């Protein structure tokens, strides 16, 4: 196996192996565990860097192992997977640091970090999957790896949330699987191909209806993780998980995997033109739009901060779907780049929410009055993230929205602009009051459960990650046109998918 075939495996292994080792570490080996985690994360980052450089220079990376006759286990690196891989590697490092700080002195850390690493492994696998079956493999693995993280707290609420999560995701996985197998029986291959393979390979006798049904199955399966309404019910419940998990869930792994899958299915399985031709993209776009609006409205009424953020995620993640379902390269750029942008912003928000909960015991929006005076840096990061979500320039969210809007125009679907506008208004409606209360209200009294965390407002391991990600969120917006920026990648991807 040469290096170009080994690299994807190495990238997987860089989180898998530490994860497996960590499972067997005694609780007390904090340093070893942290070192392993960070080493794995750094190593992955380096390897991803090598891969990005390689792809940039025209190397193609592909690992191919036989799975069952006619179907291979394929990992490969194309522009789209690299975008996601890079995102998850970077955010993994940050989240690891955060989690180390967050879980200091809490029980079952070996278990936690073990599954944590598995989770990222699965995400990276999802990203690099070269065909639908490999994707499915890692997609389901992701379900399994995240479940213990969701129920990590071990409370009854956590258990129920975990069950709810599973109900949705496993059912979704099943739909996805049916769709995948069906597609396989029709096409005989599942390899992701630029521009899709379905239109070429589906035999002439294949009815369009069955292709539509398969599409619906696939999207429904992916839509569960991508939290498309009405398949979103698990996400707000999953909020009982510790903050780093929520961060991971919302920004890096689970919802992203769903959205990423939708991108894959539309572009590399069906091919956007064929999908549009089948008439499936418009309903999907409408569904995504409905999700955006509905979840935003729901978010308005949540007092629990993390629940509010969860509904915000549901809304925001559908931008990605909306982007790819809007037929046209510009909207595609918007959708794809939002994959990264949403991740950066949302992870910031969750980190901050975690900081508040961990340091002050603040869980509710109504408890956040004046919290910015106590934790200015945290809330600064939060504010950046929230403004980005609203779509205030020059933050990341604005760039996504701009492309989505322009793309909608290009596709002749002006209504999408209205959706974006409405969503922005709603985003503002549920984020600005938080910002206002935090910065401009006086604290009501003692914090619910304040715990001194060092000399700064909280531990540096908790403070650094949100600041870094917030700065990223600012930078990717402000410097959107710099080479290697997410936007540039997204443009590259869109060019390939649209065959230019």
């Amino acid at each position, binding site marked *: 196996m040469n290096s170009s075939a080994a690299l994807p495996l190495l990238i997987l292994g860089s989180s898998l192996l530490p994860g497996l080792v960590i499972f067997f570490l005694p609780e007390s080996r904090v340093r070893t565990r942290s070192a392993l985690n960070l080493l794995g994360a750094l190593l992955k980052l380096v390897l991803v860097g090598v891969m990005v450089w390689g792809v940039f220079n025209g190397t193609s990376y592909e690992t191919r192992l036989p799975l069952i006759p006619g179907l291979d286990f394929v990992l490969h690196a194309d522009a789209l997977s690299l975008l996601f891989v890079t995102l998850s590697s970077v955010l993994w490092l940050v989240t690891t640091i955060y989690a180390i700080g967050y879980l200091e002195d809490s029980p079952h850390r070996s278990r936690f970090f073990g599954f944590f690493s598995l989770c990222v492994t699965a995400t990276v696998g999802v990203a690099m999957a070269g065909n639908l079956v490999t994707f499915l493999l890692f997609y389901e693995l992701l379900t399994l790896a995240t479940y213990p993280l969701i129920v990590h707290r071990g409370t009854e609420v956590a258990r129920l949330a975990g069950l709810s999560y599973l109900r949705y995701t496993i059912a979704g996985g099943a739909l996805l699987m049916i769709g995948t197998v069906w597609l396989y029986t029709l096409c005989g291959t599942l390899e992701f191909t630029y521009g899709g393979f379905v239109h070429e390979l589906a035999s002439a006798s294949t009815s369009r209806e069955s292709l539509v049904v398969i599409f619906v199955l696939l999207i429904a399966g992916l839509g569960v993780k991508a939290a498309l309404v009405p398949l979103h019910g698990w996400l707000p419940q999953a909020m009982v998980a510790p903050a780093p998990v929520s961060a991971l869930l919302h920004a890096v792994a689970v919802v992203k995997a769903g959205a990423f899958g939708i991108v894959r299915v539309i572009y590399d399985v069906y091919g956007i033109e064929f999908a549009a031709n089948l008439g499936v993209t418009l309903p999907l776009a409408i569904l995504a739009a409905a999700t955006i609006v509905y979840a935003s409205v729901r978010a308005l009424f949540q007092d629990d901060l993390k629940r509010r953020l969860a509904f915000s995620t549901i809304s925001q993640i559908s931008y990605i779907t909306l982007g790819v379902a809007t037929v046209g390269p510009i909207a595609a750029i918007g959708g794809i780049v939002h994959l990264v942008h949403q991740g950066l912003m949302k992870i910031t928000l969750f980190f901050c929410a975690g900081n508040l909960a961990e340091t002050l015991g603040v869980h509710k929006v109504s408890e956040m009055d004046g919290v910015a005076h106590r934790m200015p840096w945290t809330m600064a990061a939060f504010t950046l993230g929230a*403004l980005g979500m*609203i*779509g*205030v*320039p*020059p933050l990341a969210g*604005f*760039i996504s*929205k*701009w492309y989505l*809007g*322009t793309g*909608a*125009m*290009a596709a002749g679907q*002006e209504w999408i*602009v*209205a959706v*974006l*506008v*409405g969503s*922005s*208004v709603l985003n*503002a*409606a549920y984020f*600005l009051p938080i910002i206002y209360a935090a910065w*401009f209200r006086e604290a009501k009294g003692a914090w619910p459960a304040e715990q001194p965390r060092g000399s700064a407002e909280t531990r540096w391991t908790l403070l650094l990650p949100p600041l870094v990600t917030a700065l990223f969120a600012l930078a990717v*917006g*402000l*410097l*959107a*046109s*710099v080479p290697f920026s997410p*936007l540039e990648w997204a443009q590259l991807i869109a060019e390939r998918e649209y065959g230019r």
Partner: protein
Amino acid sequence: MSEVMSASFAESVLLIAVPFVPLVMSAAMLPSRWRESVVRLAPWASLPALLVAAFSTGEMLDLPWLLLGSRLGMDDVGQVFLVFTAVLWLLAGIYGRSYLAGDTRRARFFAFYLLTMSGNLGLIVSQDILSFYLFFALMSFSSYVLIMHKQIPQALRAGRIYIYFVVLGEVLLFAGAVMGAWQAGTLYLDEFPGTAQSNIVTGLLIVGFGIKAGALPVHAWLPLAHSVAPTPASVVLSGAMIQSGLLGWLRFLPLGHVALPEWSLVCITAGFGAAIYGVLVGLSQDEPKAVLAYSSISQMGLITVGTGVGMAAPEIWPLCLSAILVYAFHHAFAKGALFLGVGIAASTGGAMTRRGPIVAGLLLPAFALAGLPFTSGAVAKSGLTELIGHLPEPWSVRMATLLSLVAVGTTCLMARLFYLVWFQESGHPQKTNGLWPPWLAMLSVVAFSIWLWPSVDTATLLTTSFAGLWHALWPAAAGATGAWVAWTLACKGLLKFPYRIPVGDILVPVSWLSRKLGRSWSCMTDRFRQRAKDRAWNLQQAFSGLARFRSPWQLEVRMRRWEIWGVMFVTLLVLFYVMLALA
């Protein structure tokens, strides 16, 4: 990509410095030990803007790495805006340093003052949609903190309402910009307006920027915000930021390229409406700053009219543009000076006599606003009148009348202002020494700046015909007379002001309506939620009943009975045999 001359190095640095100096200074306030020094320097953050305004050669600076590729640069319109904006920020800043001395939130004020300044100046030098939008948003959001600075309930309410409008404006602009950019196929503002624009884009842009410009009916935030903000903030709000809405129109709308008769009608109607409405509501205000704020609405209404005329007749657009610019220029300074003066007056406290010099000083900008001859107002108004003269017959006459009517109203409004300034109760006197120099500077700017205007021919102005003079004078005279009569009668108790409209005017019914709606909505949702809860409870009950439903289990146990499994076994045998036999 248009062929533009790239700017020289020095000019590039200056252009970047225009928004970045205030931005960096704002950031520099993060460490608490630097705050004092930065506050002291804050007003001067607008110096680069002045320099650019003074020395720009109109070259463009491309920053391809910024956003989606940005361009900064200077043009004629920008120059005018930059001049008055920078001056206002400078003087208001200097004024603010003293005004807020001793205020515990001074540092915060100046941090956001600088941020807002950065946005305001930055949008003027922006030559592409995104950076314009970026700076516009920066300005809009940052100024929120200036408005609610006092954090008294009125301030908070004003701030809240302001932010509603900001968000509304932002999203409208976003939609307009996105759609417009797509239709135009460019992100650069110099190429932008030249292309066809759909009605919806135009509408979005007009309303979106109209919010900032205080256009009717989206003006409601303005009086609240302007009157409650600290005076230095009011100055820049009413003088500078309000004009950025106008700049938005100028930059984004296809003015001078395409005739937009329908939109023209809308603008003219809304403009005159605002002009008159501002006066009528303003007259009933008890707060000098509120009066001034309504005056701003009224004056901006006139500018809107000018814009509307330009929409109707693209061929006379250059004329329109210069009229509008002059008016904006004039209004910015005059309003700035008025606010500064009113601020001083409010700070003097005590005897009315001490306000004598202030009132005297206020006369100058007030006259200017009323359009008395030899003031900037006269120049501005004559430009507008000339413009209207170009319109077809019935329109030109009627609008001239309306214009005069507005002038009368403005005079009355100014009279009201003086009345209020003179008689208002005020609290403890404060040190006002530091406030005077910037005000005096502003007064001098009001007095003389218009003469620096390149297209204003001093000689022409001085040799205005008697008819012209009369035209300029009679509304003011009429207004003054009316005001005097009203005041006299009111003093004798013979006249009561016929109506009283609270600040924020249409907000009152709107918020009443929204409260009502909200209550019934929440009532409805509550009921719905209750019903859903009931249903969920029923479902839950049903589910738990299902769980208690033991028959699968009983059946399973039954199946262990010998007879039963025996029967099944034999039945299967028989069935199998039959099926095979049939096959």
